[in-house]
């Protein structure tokens, strides 16, 4: 088996699994006042401190959520509501058009139901938002901008955004900027404290932690209107009893993601370069998606377009040989749609149907790349025969 879909989810780190299972037998609601509650709270707060350190943030800036999707929704909707409440003129939402659906659909929903005017920022051919583009958009009327949201790195084509420069522009106008850093954490330096961001999303299972846990890093001056109302456990912006084992495990994975980031970028990046070279050798007309310069893309991401192929066909053929990857695009009713990321960066729609995303991770090996190198040529040939239906 060659698992090349780490961007979907990556195997849990043994240390994270150990931390999780160690907590499963222990009782305690972190909000309770008695000894069991205090024990649980201590575990949670130590985890929060660990995560804060891994992300160069203050512990109070770590708002634990059920995952990346919830954190994105809290940031986008919550900041929109709170900013609009403070000044009804602020109804403009600026978003990159290549966002993950957790952001894109939340933004779209604000436009449909909450009176937001959604403006998609222009991107270059690699899907990158340039600071000048953000400046131009805000400067048109700085007073009516509720928030801006630009992902740290793209989940499909791996393009890294100039987050700090974007945050500088936003700060000039006092506009809060949110970044979805779900894919970036563990692969590029994700330094919340120095980033100038108002809010940033991270997720547990993308870094070798458990599913169902994530966090919104949230500057202390921001109080987004909650999406989930209830006990107010997390800074009164997020309610719900904390999943202590998941939080503890997430923290271990977060610490390791930060500690091993340089190793990851070097070693996994080199393996990724080999993968790209191997695919190009086997399929000379394959087109690399995203930024071709290694510094401009996530070290674990390789994204290809195979002209004349249906991505679904390639997926089926590779899956049958034990090679697991993704077309990289979202599904609607299980039917693969051409990726919005590719369409928005000007890719021909037919070409956009023939994509595969290979994403590596901490368990990737040379053998995985070799298996793909062997299989990809014949698979592309066969998929081409099947054509575009």
């Amino acid at each position, binding site marked *: 088996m060659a698992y090349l879909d780490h961007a979907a989810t990556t195997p849990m780190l043994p240390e994270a699994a150990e931390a999780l299972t160690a907590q499963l037998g222990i009782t305690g609601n972190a909000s309770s006042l008695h000894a069991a509650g205090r024990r649980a709270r201590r575990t949670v707060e130590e985890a929060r401190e660990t995560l804060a350190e891994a992300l160069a943030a203050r512990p109070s800036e770590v708002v634990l959520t059920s995952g990346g999707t919830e954190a994105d929704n809290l940031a986008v909707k919550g900041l929109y509501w709170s900013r609009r409440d403070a000044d009804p003129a602020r109804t403009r939402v600026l978003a990159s058009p290549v966002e993950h659906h957790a952001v894109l659909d939340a933004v779209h929903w604000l436009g449909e139901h909450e009176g937001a005017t959604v403006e998609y920022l222009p991107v270059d051919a690699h899907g990158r938002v340039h600071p000048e583009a953000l400046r131009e958009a805000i400067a048109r009327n700085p007073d009516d901008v509720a928030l801006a949201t630009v992902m740290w790195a793209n989940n499909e084509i791996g393009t890294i955004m100039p987050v700090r420069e974007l945050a500088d522009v936003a700060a000039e106008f006092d506009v809060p900027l949110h970044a979805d850093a779900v894919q970036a954490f563990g692969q590029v330096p994700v330094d919340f404290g120095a980033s100038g961001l108002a809010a940033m999303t991270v997720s547990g299972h993308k870094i070798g932690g458990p599913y169902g846990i994530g966090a919104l890093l949230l500057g202390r001056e921001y109080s987004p209107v909650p999406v989930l109302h209830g006990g107010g456990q997390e800074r009164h912006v997020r309610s719900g009893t904390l999943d202590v084992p998941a939080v503890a495990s997430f923290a271990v994975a977060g610490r390791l993601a930060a500690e091993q980031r340089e190793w990851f970028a070097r070693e996994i990046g080199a393996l990724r370069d080999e993968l790209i070279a191997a695919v190009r050798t086997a399929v000379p007309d394959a087109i690399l998606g995203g930024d071709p310069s290694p510094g401009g893309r996530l070290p674990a991401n390789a994204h290809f377009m195979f002209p004349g192929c249906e991505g679904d066909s390639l997926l089926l053929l590779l899956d049958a040989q034990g090679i697991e990857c993704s077309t990289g695009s979202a599904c609607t009713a299980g*039917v693969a749609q051409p990726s919005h990321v590719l369409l928005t960066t000007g890719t021909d729609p037919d070409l956009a149907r023939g994509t595969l995303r290979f994403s590596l991770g901490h368990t990737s090996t040379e053998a995985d790349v070799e298996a793909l190198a062997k299989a990809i040529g014949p698979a592309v040939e066969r998929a081409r*025969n099947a054509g575009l239906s």
Partner: protein
Amino acid sequence: MTETSQRSRPLRVLAAMSGGVDSAVAAARAAEAGHDVTGVHLALSANPQSFRTGARGCCTIEDSRDARRAADVIGIPFYVWDLAERFREDVVEDFVAEYEAGRTPNPCLRCNEKIKFAALLDKALALGFDAVCTGHYAQVILREDGTRELHRASDMAKDQSYVLGVLDEKQLAHAMFPLGDTVTTKEEIRAEAERRGLAVAKKPDSHDICFIADGDTQGFLARRLGRAEGDIVDESGTKVGTHEGAYGFTIGQRKGLRIGTPAPDGKPRYVLDISPVDNTVTVGPAASLDVSALTAIKPRWCGTAPSGPGTYTAQLRAHGGETEVTAELVDGTLEVSFAAPVRGVAPGQAIVLYDGTRVVGSATIATTVRATTDVKVG
């Protein structure tokens, strides 16, 4: 097990899984027989509904999930393939155009011909599969000379060879129907699904037309073709009522005519003819429905086309009975005469010819000859 699933060499099989119990059991049987099976659900609607309304349909997201769940239990890979555009062009638009022309199409048959055993099969073959497997009740028999024959299912009550009659030998060579030799009740198929741990065991049967979710064919056609009021006349041409669109009728139809004045003899009246040109529907007594002969176009043969006149049994509609005919291919048109008059023959429906249980071929009914008047209509 059918012949195809008995072969020792395991085949790479693509199982079309609608989300219903039959196709799930078919896929499970193919896998159990040792084949390398991959499940695929065809997304046939561009805007699928999230949930079934009642028991109908095979085009909802829920059906797709049911199919995926079944594939997971069987332990086979599962994909959803988007054939909505092909389905719209080849099945839905054909369905509308046929009704508009006063004929009565069979969309299931068209889907088998153009989608399941054409678009889907072609793609499957190109991707290296050997066969497409469905939950149809019919049998493929391999002769000693290497040719394949399509036969009625062992259980005549369940037989679906009629809607597969359009398949040619090349299509049959890559078709697998694991339910075809099952002599069993639906309850037993459900019991088998239950035994195999398939949750679709209790799912209600789908019926009617999958792309008309509410079952209201008239309403669907009215939305597509608009209302067009016209006259209902009797055989003498006397107006006896009005209708809201001639396309909404089928030859032999008795219900829903809403004729105010009863027939002189007080007997029920039936649709005898639909004329889209002057938007007129002709009604008359049951005896006038008797047809003694017909012509049919676009013949397709399972094997070589027969030469000269031959005697066959014929089936004229899904779930219809058998009738004795003599048929001959004349200049590409099938000319058929009935041993005894038959009723309710609707242009647009298929005539499928059988030799015993073997499907010989099929064609689309174009014109009929009335037994009583000997006037050609259609």
